[in-house]
């Protein structure tokens, strides 16, 4: 498909067009010194001129020396909060006399446009699609939230300090799963956006935008930007036989080293865009006439998560960390046919004590090789 090129001055037309089509726009914006996803009303609400410095346990916003709209990578939030919300009501129970009534929450139409979805996040959404929709049981809450979404992806023009999408083969270039993909080009007085469609809906929006057709030189810009980002990954993870390596390394002493540092605070799992664990909670009114069953995010790092017949199966932090990482990189392959990691680096950055999945994997690999 032929792309369009929009100038910075006309980029707002994309927002206007999506608004006109009835979409609520959601995208990155600055809040409390980080970049979060929230409802957007104009291009001005994007983190214009900001970038992020990320390392294990550290995230800082910094000013760029330009006015880029997408000159940063991902923050602690992911699109998971919209598709698999932190809390959702599953059903309500009413009691009249001895009779019980059950009702599901009303699900209203909510057309949304996700603005600025990165390649790793497209991969994460694809993984959660497989978990919630493609594994034999359809999760109705997720299914509903996944409907009526228009996805505007963005090719990353910078790599974050904890990014390793190249290792996980999920980015930095967006290849599928979007309606439109945007590449921001800033170069010697030029500030423009190369936009390509990935669906019929995207093509329709593209046709309504006041751009000029993309030429070979624009495509070359896009390719160069993506190649440069790929060359600057902050981290790497050797995925070669990683499943076998982790299974073989289950008794590695390195798990003890990690457990010494790990807080079991759950941050890594809750910022992970693919972690999908939840618990159910029943709340009843004092007189017992109504009750609500809800689902909320849970984590394999909480003790209750593995509590069976009164006590947790994984009582040590070591067992919980090993479970999480081994599931993410190895067991996930057996369960869902892909890795559970997309290389976004959130678990490294947002670990309050900087535990690094790439370093842990490398250490286990070294141990496995010694153990043979």
């Amino acid at each position, binding site marked *: 498909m032929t792309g369009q090129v929009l100038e910075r001055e006309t980029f707002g037309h994309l927002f206007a067009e999506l608004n006109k089509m009835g979409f609520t726009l959601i995208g990155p914006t600055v*809040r*409390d*010194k*980080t970049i*979060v996803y929230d409802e957007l009303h104009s291009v001005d609400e994007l983190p214009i001129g900001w970038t992020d410095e990320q390392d294990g*346990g*550290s*995230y*800082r916003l910094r000013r760029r020396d330009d006015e880029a709209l997408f000159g940063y990578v991902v*923050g*602690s*939030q992911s699109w998971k*909060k919209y598709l698999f919300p*932190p*809390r959702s009501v599953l059903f309500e129970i009413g009691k009249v006399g001895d009779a019980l009534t059950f009702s599901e929450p009303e699900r209203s139409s909510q057309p949304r446009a996700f603005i600025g979805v990165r390649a790793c996040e497209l991969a994460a959404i694809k993984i959660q699609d497989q978990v919630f929709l493609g594994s034999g049981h359809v999760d109705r809450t997720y299914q509903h939230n996944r409907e009526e979404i228009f996805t505007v992806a963005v090719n990353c023009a910078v790599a974050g300090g904890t990014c390793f999408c190249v290792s996980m083969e999920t980015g930095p270039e967006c290849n599928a799963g979007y309606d439109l993909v945007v590449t921001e080009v800033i170069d010697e007085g030029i500030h423009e956006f190369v936009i390509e469609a990935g669906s019929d809906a995207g093509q329709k929006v593209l046709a309504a935008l006041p751009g000029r057709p993309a030429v070979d030189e624009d495509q070359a810009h896009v390719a160069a930007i993506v190649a440069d980002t790929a060359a600057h990954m902050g981290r790497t993870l050797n995925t070669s036989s990683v499943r076998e390596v982790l299974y073989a390394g289950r008794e590695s002493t390195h798990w003890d080293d990690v457990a*010494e*540092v*790990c*807080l*079991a*605070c*759950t*941050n890594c799992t*809750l*910022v992970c865009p693919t972690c999908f664990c939840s618990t159910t*909670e*029943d*709340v*009843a*009114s*004092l*007189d*017992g006439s109504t009750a609500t069953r809800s689902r*909320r*995010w849970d*984590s394999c*790092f*909480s*003790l*209750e998560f593995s509590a069976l017949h009164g006590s947790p199966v994984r009582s040590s*932090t070591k067992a919980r960390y090993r479970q999480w990482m081994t599931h993410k990189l190895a067991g996930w392959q057996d369960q869902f046919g892909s890795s559970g990691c997309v290389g976004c680096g959130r678990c490294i*950055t*947002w*670990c*309050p*004590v*900087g535990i690094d999945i790439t370093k842990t994997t490398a250490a286990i690999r070294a141990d496995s090789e010694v153990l043979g």
Partner: protein
Amino acid sequence: MTDRPKLAVWKFASCDGCQLSLLDCEDELLDVVGAIDLAYFPEATRDEIEGPYDLSLVEGSVTTPHDAARIHEVRGVSKAVVTIGACATAGGVQSLKNWANVDDFISIVYAEPDYIDSLETSTPISDHIDVDYELRGCPINKYQLLEVVAAFLQKRTPNISAHSVCVDCKLRGTACVMVGQGMPCLGPVTHAGCGALCPAYNRGCYGCYGPAETVNMASLGSWWQDLGVADDDLVRALRTFNGYAPEFREASEVYEH
């Protein structure tokens, strides 16, 4: 007299804030008094219904010989005892005296110290009697209190999690203030319950709900030191509202020189 369960609210060494949480349940108060009899609750009414009581809420810590005896009387007239708040569950802010000489304080504070009959320590209720459930917080969360009362009435386990405050930050969409802003935060070792209030207002967690189910203060403390926190300040942070809770107590002693 009705056949509704009888609730008693007892005060030990405390500020009253936790028991007043029950009266703060403004929208739910009619439901509460519809479901239970406030049989003994001096902060709410001078009316008093004799025990035994189906549920006793105990606020405050034990700091005097008189209270050390009285708590056994409370246990004796109560079918279930639920302790509420940091004082009752961990000794409270007044447990600072456990690291000091009480006589020194008494001589400084009181003009007529002869009338003071205080124990050397402030201790949680569970050090003295069997407790059926402990509700954490300084102060407790009124919704959690309602949940405990409802769970008691419905003979089920309360929906109250012992995980870290970090979970609640993520549930409400607050980005980590320690990672994002370099602020020392006790959230990763602190029991949830407040809804992650302080980080939502750009402040680190003060540990009001005491130790979480898993506490690795050695690791968090080392990260705080890297953020420039002095050992004295680590001790003070740990010994605020729940300093005498075993995990915080032991951790604080590591940083005391």
